[in-house]
Structures are given as structure tokens and as C-alpha cells.
């Protein structure tokens, strides 16, 4: 390690805050997983929810806990720790802001959850107007977003301090990547903050009577697509910069890794229309423009794939592997820190291909809002991302709690990874097929008046329940591992692995740290993609919508 400020261990005071995030994340995983299991059981047609609980109520819980809470808390905890490890211990001021952020997010989560449990907010995690939830639900969501900004501010402060203390030097790779993701998150969440603060809150409080539905949805999806990249980039951080160290190899190229992250920042945001392709009120030319911008992320994705496989191959050859695929065998398959994220990585190949189909302009009509889409993001988010997060948990949690991953837990962790993979193959596979037959997403069990087409969907829903049950077993295993690593594993020192670049003489160009430039291009692309269609939407707006509560009360 070249820099003196780089410490090999995360300071325990920083570790405590990271762990606080992880506790919430894993509670969300447990409860969310239970909801997921119940959803698949209801959809199989063999089980009904007791005590008047509504399917869409548990679906809202599942979407909010898994899509918003688990992800945001885990990511903020991980990035906070990664910056502490690579750019130095956070200052007391940064740490205080981090704690405030954590509590603001937690209080927001509790507010939103309470309203969902009271049946005041069965609006799913996308809360599309004119479905109108209780204002406390929207306020809770606002708190989650603002809390995450404070969490992000803590990270930015420590990064800025490192830059001040090391003029003219490129920042540590992991810190740089974390900051890119934080910046992308802040720029993106301005959209959802705008619709909640200026449209949904005043409307749910009764201060205004109506809401502009298309504007609200457009602001939501301006946020919704970068949201999924916000989940993915921490996984890429692990793949690019941590996995090479775990297997004993080198980072293929530090500079290209940074370049790909910059491309993700630029092309993740001005693309929300690909979620609105079949919507009225948006000109098809602007939709197509955003489709083109969407496809630009394929370039950094290809770079990522290349560099990961290059790392693996070079490592294998250094171990004497020969032949085209000989390197594959010498990878450390018995190490859960590698194998579990690798399963995630491999799942990203079909997942990415599915994503290309979804974003393909008119091809979207075949799959839009079918259960295919749910199958798709259970591969991307709930497999690639989540298994990588689990892979990080296996060393980060013991690192922070001063314990070690024992052989037995390592073994259980590998079993956990494969259980997840098998469960997901059933559930996600069946969702993809059912979707191609037209089965809708976000739907409880229904035979649609014994329609012949709907009857064809039922066997796939039963397969999803089989997969869901296996997945739930995976969640139980993961909770056992997490609790062990947090409270019971033997004391010791677990490494926080940070990879080194193969070519240490090649310094990353300083232009990568020129935030004025990258934020400027990001803003320019956003303005280019959104300004005219947004003005059109407002100028040609229909009368606004009053609110509706189309779900039952207790």
C-alpha cells in the first residue's frame, strides 16, 4: 500500500455505523423474504392469506423492504466502510453526519412501514399517483431519501479530505467507485424527491386537489432506472476491485475500471423513458432517443465482463492452467467469498440479455408489465446483486465485529449460494416463461373466469412457489450466517480484501477526478433527454387527477 492514510483495518467507530446499517438490511431481508414466500404461495392458488391480510399489502412490504430498504442500507453501510478502509478513517464530523443519516433513514422506514401495516398505503413500492397513500407514507419515503443524502455526504467529506491531503494523486479505486455511485444516487433521487415533495405530499395533505400523473411518473422513472444501477455498482465494486484480491490475482486495469464507472454515471440517468415505452403522452422520437442512451451502458458492461474474465484467466495461467478454459478449474471454488459472488456474476449474463430485450423500444410491448419483468429483476437485483452483497457480508461483517468466517460457516455459505441459485432458477425461469405467455405481474392468484389462457399460466405459478420455497430456505441460511458472524463467530482478524492493479506504474489520468466535467456532462445529457418532452408534458397536460384509495381498510 502506497499511501500512509490507508489503514488496513476499518476503524471500530466506523465499523459500528456500518454494522448498524447491516442490522436494518438483514431485518429487511428476513421480513421481505417471508413476504416473497407468501406471494408465491398465494399465486400458486393453494394458499390464502389469513386475518384479512391483502395480497397487495404484502407485495408493498416486499417491494419496499427488498427494493428500497435492504439495498439502500446495505449499500450505504458497505460504501461507508470501503471509504474508511481505503481513504482513511472518517472524521468525527463525517461520522456524526453518517449517524444522523442512518437514523433519518430508519425513522423514515418505520413511518412508511407503519402506514403499510395500517392499510393506509397499499400502493406498492412505486406509489404511482393517482393511487393516494397516507401522507405519513410519503413523508417516510422523503426521510429515507434525505437520510441517504446525509450518508452520502459523510462519504464525500472523507473523499474530499483524501484529495486535499494527496494533491495530484488519483484517489483509491474503491473510494472513487463509491463516490461515483453516491453522486449518481444524489442526482437521481432529486427526481423522486421532487415528485414526493412538490406533488404527492401537498396532494395527500389536502393542500392541492389534483396531481399531474404523467409528470409524477416521469419524475419517478428519472429516478427508477438509476436506482437499479445504484444497486448494481456496489456489486461491480466487489467484482472489479475485491474479487481479484480474494482469488490472489490482480485488477486487470485500474484506469479502465474508473472509465467504466464514469460511463455508468453518464448513461444511467437520462434513460427513464425505457420504463414508459408503452405510455401515452410521450412522443415516440423522444422514447427512441432514450432507448439509444440506454444502450450506451452496454459499453461499460462489455468492459466489465472483459476485465473480470481477463483477471480470472491471468490468475489461472499464473497457476499453470493451460488450454482455452483451463483457468476455470483452478479458481478458488471452495472459498465462499469468491463462489457466491461468482454465481451472481454468471447470472448477470442471462439477466443482461433479458434487459436488452426489455429496453428494445417496440419489443418492450411483448413483455411490458408481464411477470417476465419480475423474473428479470430477480436475476439482476435478487441474484447478481444480492449474492454479491452476501459474498461481501461473509468477510466484511467479521472484519467489522472482530471475528472470523469459520470453515463451517464458509461451507454453509457456499451451500447457501447454490440453494439460492436453484430456487431462483425455478422461480425466475417460470416467471420468464409465464410472462411470454402474457401473464401479468403484480397480480394475486386469478383464473380470470376460468379463461383458457389463464389456466395455462397456473403450472408456472406452482413452479414459482417451489422456487420461492427453496429461496426462502436460502434466506434462513443467510440469516444464520449473518447472526453467527455478527455475534457468535470466534474472535479474530478477518481481512478486508482490496485488490491491486496489475500494472502499478500506470497512473489513472487525473481527468477522471474532474467532477465539474463529469457532473457537467451528466447534467447536459439529462437536459438533452428530458427538457423538451417535459415541457411538452406540462404544456399539453390534461386536467389533473384527484386521489383514489382503491384498496380496503382494516
Amino acid at each position: 500500500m502506497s499511501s500512509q492514510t490507508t489503514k488496513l483495518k476499518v476503524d471500530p467507530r466506523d465499523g459500528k455505523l456500518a454494522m448498524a446499517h447491516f442490522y436494518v438490511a438483514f431485518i429487511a431481508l428476513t421480513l421481505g423474504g417471508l413476504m416473497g414466500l407468501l406471494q408465491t404461495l398465494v399465486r400458486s392458488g393453494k394458499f390464502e392469506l389469513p386475518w384479512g391480510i391483502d395480497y397487495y399489502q404484502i407485495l408493498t412490504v416486499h417491494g419496499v423492504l427488498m427494493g428500497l430498504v435492504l439495498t439502500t442500507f446495505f449499500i450505504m453501510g458497505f460504501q461507508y466502510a470501503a471509504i474508511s478502509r481505503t481513504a482513511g478513517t472518517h472524521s468525527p464530523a463525517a461520522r456524526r453526519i453518517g449517524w444522523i443519516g442512518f437514523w433519518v433513514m430508519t425513522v423514515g422506514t418505520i413511518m412508511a412501514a407503519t402506514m403499510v401495516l395500517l392499510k393506509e398505503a397499499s400502493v406498492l413500492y412505486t406509489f404511482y399517483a393517482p393511487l393516494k397513500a397516507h401522507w405519513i407514507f410519503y413523508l417516510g419515503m422523503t426521510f429515507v431519501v434525505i437520510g441517504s443524502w446525509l450518508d452520502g455526504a459523510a462519504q464525500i467529506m472523507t473523499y474530499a479530505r483524501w484529495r486535499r491531503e494527496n494533491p495530484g494523486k488519483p484517489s483509491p479505486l474503491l473510494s472513487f467507485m463509491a463516490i461515483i455511485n453516491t453522486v449518481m444516487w444524489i442526482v437521481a433521487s432529486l427526481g423522486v424527491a421532487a415528485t414526493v415533495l412538490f406533488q404527492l405530499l401537498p396532494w395527500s395533505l389536502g393542500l392541492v386537489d389534483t396531481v399531474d400523473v404523467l409528470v409524477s411518473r416521469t419524475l419517478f422513472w428519472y429516478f427508477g432506472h438509476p436506482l437499479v444501477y445504484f444497486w448494481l455498482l456496489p456489486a461491480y465494486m466487489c467484482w472489479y476491485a475485491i474479487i481479484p484480491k480474494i482469488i490472489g490475482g490482480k485488477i486487470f486495469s485500474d484506469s479502465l475500471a474508473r472509465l467504466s464507472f464514469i460511463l455508468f454515471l453518464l448513461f444511467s440517468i437520462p434513460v427513464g423513458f425505457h420504463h414508459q415505452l408503452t405510455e401515452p403522452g410521450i412522443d415516440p422520437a423522444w422514447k427512441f432517443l432514450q432507448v439509444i442512451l440506454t444502450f450506451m451502458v452496454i459499453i461499460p458492461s462489455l468492459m466489465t465482463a472483459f476485465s473480470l474474465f481477463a483477471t480470472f484467466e491471468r490468475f489461472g495461467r499464473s497457476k499453470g492452467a493451460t488450454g482455452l478454459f483451463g483457468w476455470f478449474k483452478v479458481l478458488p471454488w471452495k472459498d465462499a467469498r469468491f463462489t457466491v459472488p461468482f454465481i451472481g456474476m454468471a447470472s448477470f449474463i442471462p439477466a443482461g440479455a433479458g434487459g436488452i430485450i426489455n429496453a428494445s423500444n417496440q419489443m418492450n410491448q411483448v413483455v411490458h408489465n408481464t411477470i417476465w419483468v419480475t423474473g428479470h429483476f430477480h436475476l439482476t437485483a435478487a441474484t447478481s446483486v444480492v449474492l454479491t452483497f452476501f459474498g461481501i457480508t461473509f468477510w466484511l461483517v467479521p472484519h467489522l465485529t472482530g471475528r472470523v468466517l469459520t470453515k463451517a460457516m464458509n461451507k454453509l455459505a457456499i451451500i447457501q449460494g447454490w440453494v439460492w441459485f436453484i430456487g431462483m432458477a425455478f422461480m425466475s425461469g417460470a416467471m420468464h416463461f409465464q410472462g411470454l405467455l402474457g401473464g401479468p405481474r403484480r397480480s394475486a392468484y386469478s383464473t380470470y373466469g376460468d379463461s383458457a389462457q389463464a389456466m395455462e399460466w397456473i403450472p408456472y405459478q406452482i413452479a414459482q412457489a417451489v422456487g420461492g420455497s427453496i429461496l426462502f430456505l436460502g434466506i434462513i441460511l443467510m440469516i444464520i450466517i449473518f447472526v453467527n458472524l455478527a455475534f457468535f463467530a470466534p474472535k479474530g482478524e478477518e481481512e478486508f480484501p482490496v485488490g491491486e492493479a496489475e500494472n502499478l506504474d500506470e497512473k489513472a489520468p487525473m481527468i477522471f477526478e474532474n467532477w465539474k466535467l463529469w457532473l457537467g456532462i451528466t447534467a447536459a445529457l439529462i437536459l438533452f433527454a428530458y427538457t423538451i418532452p417535459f415541457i411538452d408534458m406540462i404544456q399539453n397536460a390534461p386536467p389533473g387527477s384527484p386521489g383514489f384509495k382503491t384498496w380496503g381498510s382494516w
Partner: protein
Amino acid sequence: MHMHKFEKIWLIFGIGALVVFLSVVGVSAFYLGNKPPSCLTTIDPEKVDTQAPFDKPGLNKVEGKEWDYELVYVASAFSYNPTEVEVPLGAKVKVMATTKDVIHGFQVAGTNINMMLEPGYINEIVTTFDKEGEYLVVCNEYCGTGHHLMSSKIKVVK
């Protein structure tokens, strides 16, 4: 910044494939007319029932247009009006729909007819029903407790 020769080849191949792919999608959309449903016409969601063509939901024969029929739907939680229609085999039909309350979906299962219905907007798609049979129309956007019960039927008959 150095880039390995193989990576250059890989990226040139990848970007080349991307250009071809986007060209195919673009030509299909803008020259062959396969644009996604994107109607720009607005409507007052509280006056849907009194405005043409939504004052007469169902299949209506039209003259002097590129299509033979207009198939008009009004969606509201949790049903479509009409609940069932018969369409002659091979007819070229413009499907037009809107919603009176929340957002709904409109998908004819087993076809490419799939569009969002949003309050204040009309959405439409032109299609030819060239296979006989009974098609299920489902709502594929969450609209409330009865979302999974919201459906309609299209019978394509000789």
C-alpha cells in the same frame, strides 16, 4: 491509459453489434411503423363517458380510414367496458382506450397489444386480428384490491 488489443477487438465487435441492433429497431419503428403506443391526445378523465368515441364503447365500424373498425374501451377499477366483444377474423382494428380513475394496463394476452392507460390520456394501437380464437384482456398495472380480477374478452370469429 492503455487498452489491451483483445479488449479493443471485443469492444469494436460489441459496439458494431450495438449499432446494427439499434438500426434494426429504429428502422422498424420509424419506417415500418412499429412504434410503441404513444398517443398524445388528452381527455378530461371525469367526462370520459360523454366524449366520442368513449360514449360508445365496443366495436364500431368506420369508413374512410386506414382501419376498418375502432374497438373502444373504457377502463375503471376493476373492469373494462365492454366486457366481451366479437371481432371478425382479418379485420384491421384501431384499439382505443382510456381510464376514468387510476392507471390501468391493457394487454391482450398472446398478442403484442400492450399499453398503459393513464388518467387524462387516450392510448391506441392499430392491429390486425388474423388468428381465430378467444383472447383474454388483462389489466397488467396494479390498480387496487381487485386488480387481478380486471379483465375482458375478445373473440375473433370467422
